[in-house]
């Protein structure tokens, strides 16, 4: 059974809400979201791969990783953990950066608020993605997703058609 991904846009509040159920206990889902070894297996949409350089899952700590594309391209990302409530919730700021983790101020900061809930059938994750400024949602669309990741998806389509 595949669980449905629900996405609600709240453009006037510069927010996107994503909800997804999992047929696994919340403890496992929490691990998959917070351990580098697990994140590297699923975080990047195929054919991209996530490769962790450093991971310090503590309040004030960072996850530095890159998204490696099928043609050798690399996009470095830094996730800065703000608050952590083990097994339940974490809030983090995500930025594009260089290989050393120096944040690229040309790109907007995206704030993640991830809530992990136990349900009758397993668990549920509720994600709120928010952007600080009016223009940021647009910028992330232009740079982060639209060109970067959808390019990845187009490559995937090509692979599937080949």
């Amino acid at each position, binding site marked *: 059974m*595949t*669980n449905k*991904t629900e*996405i609600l*846009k709240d*453009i*006037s509040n510069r927010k*996107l809400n*994503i909800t*997804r159920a*999992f*047929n*696994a206990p919340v403890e*496992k*889902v929490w*691990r*998959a979201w917070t351990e580098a070894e*697990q994140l590297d*297996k*699923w*975080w*990047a*949409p*195929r054919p991209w791969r996530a490769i962790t350089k450093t991971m310090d899952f503590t309040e004030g700590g960072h996850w530095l990783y890159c998204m490696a594309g099928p043609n050798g391209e690399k996009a470095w990302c830094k996730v800065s953990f703000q608050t952590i409530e083990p097994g339940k919730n974490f809030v983090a700021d995500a930025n594009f950066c260089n290989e050393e983790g120096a944040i690229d101020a040309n790109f907007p900061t995206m704030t993640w608020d991830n809530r992990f809930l136990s349900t009758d059938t397993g668990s549920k994750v509720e994600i709120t993605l928010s952007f600080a400024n*009016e*223009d940021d*949602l*647009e910028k992330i*669309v*232009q740079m982060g*997703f*639209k060109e970067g*990741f*959808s390019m990845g*998806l187009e490559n995937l389509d090509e692979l599937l058609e080949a």
Partner: protein
Amino acid sequence: MRRDIFQAIADPTRRAILALLAIHAMTPNALAEHFNTSRQAVSKHIQILAECEAVTQKQNGREIYYHVNADKMKEVDKWLDTFRKIWEDRFDQLDNVLKDL
């Protein structure tokens, strides 16, 4: 300068204009009455919306009426579809990771 639908919706006044036009077509003067800013400021926003093709204009007698361009607004949903695909793909991969954990 780049003009696209995301620029159209990036500004709160422009979103408010689109929300009003979604109810019914309006003249620039009728639109301006809904805002505390100057008519010039409102017309500037309308001009940007027109350049982004978020609105279209129709002449009715001596008046120009602005309409929402529904097809263009669907581009936002198209982007969301891409965004959804990314997340669905990610979560399907996560399902596999969870099986092995």
